[in-house]
């Protein structure tokens, strides 16, 4: 590949800024470093590798693709730095993909999205009639559930449909393309985004309970040069809005119950939404005990960036560390606000024998509306 035609060339100064600084403040809760142990997996280490590549000392290779796929894109490194690390690594991944060095499992996901509009291959279950009754195609609000809620974490889907009175809903899942972008497939990500943007044209508001979809629609689409019509809300923002307007009332289902809250990286560090989920929990009467790593210093669950799909063992080990941190707070519940985090944290807790229950906040809100006495 000729110099100047590489995606990484845009970030050469940033790479050398890291090589000069070497502060290593990106190590502390780099989730992959915590599990793998080599500096290779840290942001500082990756800068050193890219430096070696830029200086012609190493070539693009499958091993490099493997190392750079070991990143959840959680952004902890950037929260301690003046350089946008995930964007550097996304660019380098694009160079790897362009050179044909890809991860098999990521290719399968990408092919599935291209062919079926979703990374998952299973058929979607039919919606219960009571939720079908709430769907109104002419509503100004679309509930964009995201592939994981629609196909894997149906409880979150139903919970959101309990919370919303009336909404438009895509007939079939159409992936937002987050995984395409984060695994280095920018062209495919743009194509997918354009497809979805077309479907979203009629709507003024969009709400999603998936932190990954939220940040992709909100922050990444503009980076890809794609503007969508509706204003994007995460479910926690939307519920907060409804509470503020007085159109939603939540029972105090959490009185006397201690919970801890896991900030999904895409919602917290990337989206800067920290207070809304905590405020909703407090409104339901829960007592929040924070984990040592919270808000902008939160520890990733390990599920993002295509890590879980390609390297599940590493992803669930990371989740085990986070679940243990939650367990040590003596909270009864580990609450989060992203189906991907919920799934991976639950897997991590189970595999690592950490006795804590993981639940998405959406489900608690639905519970507070539906059946306030149940908890």
């Amino acid at each position, binding site marked *: 590949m000729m110099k100047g035609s590489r995606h990484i060339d845009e970030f050469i100064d940033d790479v050398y800024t890291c090589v000069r600084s*070497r502060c290593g403040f990106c190590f502390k809760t780099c989730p992959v470093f915590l599990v793998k142990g080599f500096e290779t997996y840290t942001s500082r280490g990756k800068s050193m590798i890219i430096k070696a590549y830029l200086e012609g000392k190493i070539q693009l290779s499958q091993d490099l693709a493997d190392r750079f796929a070991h990143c959840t894109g959680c952004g902890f490194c950037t929260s301690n730095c003046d350089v946008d690390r995930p964007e550097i690594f996304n660019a380098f991944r694009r160079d790897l993909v362009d050179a044909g060095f890809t991860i098999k499992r990521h290719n399968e996901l990408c092919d599935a999205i291209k062919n079926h509009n979703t990374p998952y291959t299973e058929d979607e279950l039919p919606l219960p009639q009571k939720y079908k009754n709430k769907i109104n195609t002419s509503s100004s609000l679309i509930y964009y559930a995201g592939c994981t809620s629609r196909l894997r974490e149906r409880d979150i889907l139903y919970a959101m449909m309990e919370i919303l009175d009336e909404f438009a809903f895509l007939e079939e899942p159409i992936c937002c393309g987050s995984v395409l972008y984060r695994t280095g497939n920018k062209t495919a990500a743009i194509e997918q985004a354009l497809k979805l943007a077309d479907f979203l044209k009629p709507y003024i508001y969009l709400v999603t309970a998936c932190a990954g979809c939220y940040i992709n629609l909100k922050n990444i689409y503009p980076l890809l040069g794609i503007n969508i019509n509706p204003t994007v809300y995460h479910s926690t923002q939307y519920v907060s809005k409804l509470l503020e307007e007085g159109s939603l009332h939540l029972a105090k289902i959490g009185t006397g119950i201690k919970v801890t809250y896991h900030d999904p990286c895409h919602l917290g560090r990337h989206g800067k939404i920290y207070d809304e989920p905590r405020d909703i929990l407090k409104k339901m009467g829960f007592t929040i005990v924070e984990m040592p790593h919270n808000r902008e210093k939160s520890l990733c669950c390990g599920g993002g960036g295509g890590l879980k799909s390609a390297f599940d063992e590493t992803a669930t080990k990371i989740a085990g560390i986070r679940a243990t941190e939650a367990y040590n707070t003596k909270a009864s519940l580990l609450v989060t606000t992203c189906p991907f985090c919920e799934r991976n944290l639950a897997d991590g807790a189970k595999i690592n024998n950490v006795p804590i229950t993981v639940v998405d906040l959406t489900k608690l809100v639905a519970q507070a509306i539906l059946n306030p006495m149940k908890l």
Partner: protein
Amino acid sequence: MKTVFEEIIDKLGTKKVSTNPIDLYPYSRDWSPMEHDKDYLPEAVCIPSTTKEVSIILEIAQKWKIPVVAWGGGTGMGGSNLAIRGGIVIATNSMSNIIEIDKDNMTVTVQAGATIQSINEALEPLGLWFPHDPESKPTSTIGAALMCDSNGTFGIKYGSMVNYVLNATVVIPGGEVIRVGQRKAATTSSGYKLLWLMISSEGTLGVMTELTLRIFPLPKKREIMLWVAPSINDATKALYAIQASGLCIESAHINDKHRLNYYTHTYREKTGKTADIPKGYNTLLALSVAGDDDVLEFSKRKISTVLCSNNCIPLENEDIVKGWWDSKHTLSWEKNKWSSSQKKEKFGSADVSVPVGRLQDMYDAFIKYTKAYDLPKVGTAIYNIGPHISPSISFAVFVDDHDKEKVANFFKYVEDMSKTAVLLGGTMSSYIGDGTRLRHLTPFEHGKSLKMMWKIKKLFDPDNILNPGKIFPENIEELSYEDLEKKGRHDER
């Protein structure tokens, strides 16, 4: 026949050893100024979890006579952790457990790869504190802090690593594991102080795997005070006056105007302005006191009285005070100071120490040599690594690492500053260590005693496999006592 690395992999497993260049490049540089494209590539990197695993590596390395370099946080500034002759890097940050917090005896025992910040995160919930506090604390490991004898913010009250460390586990070449120190006792008169020999030995005698450290009660509250004095000598006199008054301060730093500007990074971020100080006042005196409210109130009042009668005036802008402390201790900033400040040029430092009465002379040399070598000034930061007033100085500059001549000039600057410090009755390194950058000058600093140091080194490490090419000059083997006497500082002959 198996290679040395295959033998290690057999014992440690593939997940703890790599010879893939992709995994080696992250360990090819420290924070030393060097040309932007320079690197020192090891042949393998190991991430052991236990003393036993380190022992296995050193046993096999001894058999093969292959270099072994211990690696901490990789933030050193003198090349101490660089594998300049290849070999094996032992990344100790894979050994980061807090082994025991002993509240009754006020000690903590940790693995050597624990970061200084992680130690305090474990202590803080118990109301305890390990006060060694370099700005690199989120990354720098306790083992490396001891092996390079780094300085810290609270030195004037609590001292340096020698004052903290009580006991250590060290693996020596061949894999033998020894314990050095006095267990948990504060002091000992028994035997040679091998523990002290390890301090600033830069991993040339053994690989440290565990340490026991003294800890202290976490102060309830802290007050930061910035004052300015006309000169460095005025600031020093004022500091003596504070000490003479009987006050107990926990930190005392003297900065020139350049360094004040550098340290007030968050103030610049917030206001877009440089933290200026009144005309005629060229030196910052930054102090902190910690404890209960009434003690702080009294201390502040008394410090004010003493400093006002010693030609100092206060800097009362709260944003400047906060900005300085953000940089020095809390490390809370929107945009990381290190990456923000090194987008074009690299930070580099001469880390000399001189007797307190020669500080102004040393500062004059800083002005002279930065001008002579055309190096932009980051500025002067005088730490006190105490107890009492005991300067450890960072005379820092920016280096254009894309310009070979500028990098060469930096090393000439370090050499001239180092020689000046020795001639002023001081020492050429006070927190970085000799590493690769000063090894050619150690005969000048130490004279004949360098020969004894080499004999000690050979006693521990007869084949010179531990961190070779550091501290001692290349031709140390051939240098006689007479040669070293000639090379040593003139007044020692």
